[in-house]
């Protein structure tokens, strides 16, 4: 990369400051003993204590994580199979149709997906709660996984499959020993993307959640509507720190995966 001029550096700094300022503003006031966000009085941990004292809030966090993990896992399984089916469909027309239908689901607004699921669940008679949230999260995650896995599958040369067959591999061997290892990066990317989509989804969850079940985003929304409470700030601060932790773990994993390739130099 060439040298950056001062103007470029300034612009980049400005962009990042604007992007991160609200988050740090919010975290800053989570330590305010005053209880408002207008003036900083003195430092306190009490809002953080309040978060951990609130067992209901902890339950909601757990719900959110469980829904995210489950929906990401299930949608990854379905999405990988779906991508395989789309790629190995002989009928070109059907393949393109399926691909377009998949992409439509990704760009269509969450509000519409949420509302249509609400209508579906009430019509079929599914009780709104854990199951309805899980099902709808799986539904909007599957297309994402398909989209992440598909490029890897398309990039894979057909001769790899021919080679495996030629060397004695059955259809099952080809899948488990060649295709899945090859598209593994795509599968992981799909899984993590599905996980984050599920974790921060508000619109769809808002429609299909029922009495006694809530996820973090919906809860924070209702807390914010009820009035300013610095517990929200403390909770957001915690989530932010966990997110940063996850990003670091992701980078560490990525770097470890790459070492064998660049490892010749040592």
């Amino acid at each position, binding site marked *: 990369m060439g040298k950056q001029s001062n103007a470029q550096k300034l612009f980049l700094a400005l962009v990042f400051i604007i992007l991160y300022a609200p988050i740090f503003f919010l975290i800053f006031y989570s330590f305010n003993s005053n209880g408002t966000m207008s003036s900083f009085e003195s430092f306190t941990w009490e809002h953080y204590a309040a978060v951990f004292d609130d067992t209901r809030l902890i339950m909601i966090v757990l719900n959110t994580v469980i829904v995210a993990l489950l929906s990401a896992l299930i949608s990854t399984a379905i999405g990988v199979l779906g991508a395989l089916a789309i790629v190995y469909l002989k009928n070109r027309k059907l393949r393109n149709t399926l691909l377009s239908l998949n992409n439509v689901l990704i760009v269509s607004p969450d509000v519409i997906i949420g509302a249509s699921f609400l209508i579906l669940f009430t019509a079929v008679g599914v009780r709104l709660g854990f199951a309805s949230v899980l099902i709808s999260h799986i539904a909007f995650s599957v297309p994402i996984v398909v989209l992440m896995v598909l490029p890897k599958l398309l990039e894979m*040369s057909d*001769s*790899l499959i*021919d*080679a*495996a*067959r*030629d*060397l*004695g*591999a*059955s259809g099952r*061997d080809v899948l488990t*020993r*060649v295709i899945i*290892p*090859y598209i*593994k990066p795509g599968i992981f990317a799909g899984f993590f993307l599905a996980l984050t989509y599920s974790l921060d989804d508000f619109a769809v969850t808002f429609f299909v959640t029922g009495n006694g079940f809530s996820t973090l985003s919906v809860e924070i929304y209702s807390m914010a509507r009820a009035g300013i409470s610095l517990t929200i700030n403390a909770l957001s601060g915690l989530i932010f720190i966990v997110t940063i932790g996850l990003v670091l773990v992701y980078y560490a994993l990525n770097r470890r995966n790459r070492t*064998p*390739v660049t490892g*010749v130099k040592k």
Partner: protein
Amino acid sequence: MTQQPIIRFDNVSKRYNDDTTVLSNISFEMERGKFYTLLGPSGCGKTTILRLIAGFIEPSSGEIQFNGKKINEVPPNERQVNTVFQDYALFPHLNVFENVAFGLRIKKIKQAEVKRRVEEALRFVNLQGYENREISEMSGGQRQRVAIARAIVNDPEIILLDEPLSALDLKLRTEMQYELRELQQRLGKTFIFVTHDQEEALAMSDEIFVMNAGEIVQSGTPIDIYDEPINRFVADFIGESNIVDGVMIRDHLVRFAGKEFECVDAGLDTNEKIEVVIRPEDLEITSPERGKLIVTVDTQLFRGVHYELSTYDRDGNEWLVHSTRKAQVGDEIGLDFDPEAIHVMRLNESEEDFDRRLESYEVPDHAE
């Protein structure tokens, strides 16, 4: 021939979507332990034959036999055939050892034997010590060897090679020709090699099948095919050639370029229209008085081993000459050649008729 052919094609055709015919009624036999080459321009169907033998595709009609048994519908993983692919098709997620071991692992062979056989195969292709390398760390030539090791480690009856040298540079390609030929002789396996490069085919093969437009045009040893091409296509495709129209006056006498010449060909009709082939290296430069043909030098290229002269006779026929002697552009020179250098080709002659005709007058010729 008492030995059973290892591969037999019986009127095999391959059509896609019932309209595009890739192979039409191909029949041939291949003997065990020989090096065969399928040679032809791209799209001639040579790779299709390879894929039929490997089992990746099924014939539309006809029968393919392996050791006398019909194998039309046998899937590729149940055939004793291994392929070296054009793009090598090595598994990027496995290292060199595991790539070579892939077939053995599928067969659930014990680790100790896997290790022994993989190391032996890698030794065969001069890659000992590379076991733990990643594929991404290997050069093109090394990948090529890994692909060959991965095929031979399974001890198949036939090894198929789909233009495996086309991605290598010229020097490496020549080296690999020697190595492949030597490998085949050491292993004693049947090799079926697909290429569009006539030099590769001539250098390595026991037998060449020249293909064009989904048909086998001519088959035979490299020398037969080079010296006695059946028609203009083969003469043109294999090596450089001078092809002119002519008339067969009677046995052993042919007329072309406005003159009559003694030749060794016979068994044709009197006054039959034919084509004559003379290879550029069979033409010798001499003085115009002593030359059988008198031509004017148009261009001259230095090719390293020889000069390549493009010359024209008075009728406007082009004569390509390969000579170690130099000539002057614009000069009139004479061209001399032996009666054996003239090869007469009948128009639209089938391979059976061609072989029968050659045998009728060539056998005593060889016995002299």
